[in-house]
């Protein structure tokens, strides 16, 4: 990567060389140094609920079969036959006890072990000559789950997933653990955009500043009342462990009133009260913040909004309903990303809630979502321009929230103002984008902290 030291030093002080959003060498470095190490989300357990269920997902450009074997255990196996390298599974999802390579007919159990190969005895000398039992599709070097979210790391020496996520797990619970049963994850919608993968991750991590402007139209049509400019800046951003996100400030009220305000029915609120820690409840009930968008380094993002899902009343009435989405920014090339976007809903939610939450999701996010449409237009345009040679000399200004001498414009919230871990600040700033890009620089540098 050209001028790597200068590029990384600039990134670390919040000045972003524009070409990092569309550059072959930068992308090659990300491929070799970042995606071979970081924990990357691949699937949720609820996508493969039954024995034999599988989905095929990628970590960067590596195809993995994520399967549930006959004993219910989850595996992530490199989707490449040990013999001549054919993909042993070419479907995106399904249910199978075995995967048979279409090339020469080697077959593997859904836990990866080689089960059979034609003419084993004649061609290989049987078990004596070639022991099947010791052969298996290459397992991902590291697999672990949190709240059913399955992550893979290609680094055998990666820190454990809990260590990697760190205190961000506290915030993941809002999205993925609203009851003891956890969530079900539906989808994904998949589509490709001519934009660099980092832009979405940064945006979801902390860009409250774009909301009132980019998404003016959804306020104007009465779909979502919150993103008015003056209101959006009352929220706080937080960064904890390897993730961070944005929040909205809720109107005064009790925990229950505030959860009702965003559209949760009482029975779900009761389960949240049982499920979440006092600190998790205090962020909402005492401090008045409700999580919205968030990102986990490198390329997993989440969003929680509460639009109006049906006709009736005016734009400021209370007929809103929350939805949650999980999405991955899958890098395809320096200027292209595949978006995988899932709808997430609490398993114990009432059927009517699930239905309307799904409706809210499809209207707002994903391939046809009215929020998402405007975001992508911006990101494509940015990426195109970043491919030019001039972009090498342009340092984009990513220092919002910092004064010239690096001291913050706004001090972090104190523990009696914000009960969550990490560092949280009210208002518009780019602390989170810098935190994310610092992780990026650390990974590209090789100096990854445990």
């Amino acid at each position: 990567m050209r001028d790597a030291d200068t590029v990384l030093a600039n990134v670390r002080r919040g000045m972003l060389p524009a070409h990092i959003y569309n550059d072959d060498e930068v992308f090659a470095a990300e491929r070799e140094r970042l995606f071979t190490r970081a924990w990357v989300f691949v699937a949720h357990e609820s996508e493969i609920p039954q024995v034999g269920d599988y989905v095929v997902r990628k970590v960067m450009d590596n195809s993995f079969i994520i399967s549930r074997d006959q004993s219910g255990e989850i595996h992530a196996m490199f989707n490449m036959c040990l013999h001549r390298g054919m993909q042993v599974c070419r479907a995106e999802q399904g249910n199978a006890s075995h995967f048979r390579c279409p090339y020469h007919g080697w077959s593997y159990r859904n836990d990866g072990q080689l089960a059979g190969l034609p003419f084993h005895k004649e061609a290989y000398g049987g078990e004596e000559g070639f022991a099947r039992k010791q052969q298996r599709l290459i397992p991902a070097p590291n697999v672990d789950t949190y709240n059913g979210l399955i992550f893979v790391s290609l680094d055998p020496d990666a820190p454990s997933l809990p260590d990697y996520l760190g205190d961000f797990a506290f915030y993941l619970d809002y999205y993925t653990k609203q009851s003891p049963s956890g969530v079900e994850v539906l989808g994904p919608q998949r589509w490709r955009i001519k934009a660099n993968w980092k832009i979405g991750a940064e945006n979801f991590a902390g860009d409250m500043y774009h909301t009132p402007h980019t998404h003016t139209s959804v306020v104007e049509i009465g779909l979502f009342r919150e993103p008015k400019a003056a209101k959006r800046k009352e929220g706080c951003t937080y960064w904890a462990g390897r993730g961070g996100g944005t929040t909205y400030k809720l109107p005064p009220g009790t925990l229950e009133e505030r959860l009702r305000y965003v559209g949760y029915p009482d029975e779900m609120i009761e389960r949240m009260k049982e499920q979440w820690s006092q600190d998790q409840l205090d962020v909402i009930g005492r401090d008045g913040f409700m999580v919205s968008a968030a990102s986990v380094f490198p390329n997993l993002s989440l969003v929680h909004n509460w639009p109006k899902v049906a006709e009736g009343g005016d734009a400021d009435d209370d007929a809103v309903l929350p939805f949650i989405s999980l999405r991955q920014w899958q890098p395809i090339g320096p200027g292209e990303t595949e978006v995988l976007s899932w709808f997430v809903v609490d398993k114990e939610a009432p059927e009517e809630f699930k239905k309307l939450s799904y409706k809210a999701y499809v209207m707002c996010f994903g391939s046809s979502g009215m929020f998402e449409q405007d975001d992508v237009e911006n990101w494509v345009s940015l990426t195109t321009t970043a491919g030019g040679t001039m972009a090498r000399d342009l340092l984009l200004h990513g220092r919002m929230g910092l004064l010239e001498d690096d001291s913050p414009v706004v001090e972090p919230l104190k523990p009696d103002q914000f009960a969550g871990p990490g560092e949280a600040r009210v208002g518009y700033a780019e602390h989170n984008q810098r935190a994310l890009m610092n992780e990026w620089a650390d990974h590209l540098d090789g100096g990854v902290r445990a």
Partner: protein
Amino acid sequence: MSTYVPIRSDASPLGQDAPTTEAVGPSLAFDDPRHLLAHRWLVEETYVLDRQEYDDWLALLADDIHYFMPIRVTTAAGAGYDTARRMAHFDEDRYSLGRRVARFQTEHAWTEDPPSRIRHHLSNVRTFATRVDDELVVESAVLLFRSRGDVNEPSLVSAGRTDLLRRTGDRWLLARRHIAVDESVLRTQNLAIFL
């Protein structure tokens, strides 16, 4: 062995109240007045969509419209399904389609400012009678060409559609549209368009 799996509104959590009228018998002869009427309706609609005259398009929709485009997934032959469970690209009723159109009409729908140049290429139209005199099922293929900006690579969306047209007074309205998109991964930046 057929690989065809029909799309059904009741596969959608929002499709429980959708019209259920189905095609009966073979397709109508191409000189059948009902086919001519349905074909003309679809051709006229493509002009409305290409010109992005979305108020006029909304006026072509029945109040109980179910506009449904499930996600296609690659599954093994014989799996018996090729759409994702309970998830879709579009799963719309009159309210949500109305919001989408209203948004395009604000001054802040950046994704279509400047607007895309779009062309719906319509073909393979065939019409079926139903058990209801005033309802016809129409199948068609549509290839959407979409160009944005000056030199951006254009995108294509190919789909099969199965529509239910219903006579309401002296007009025919779209009461149900099932869209079988032909890619599992869409190669267009968003669906700020209608098929």
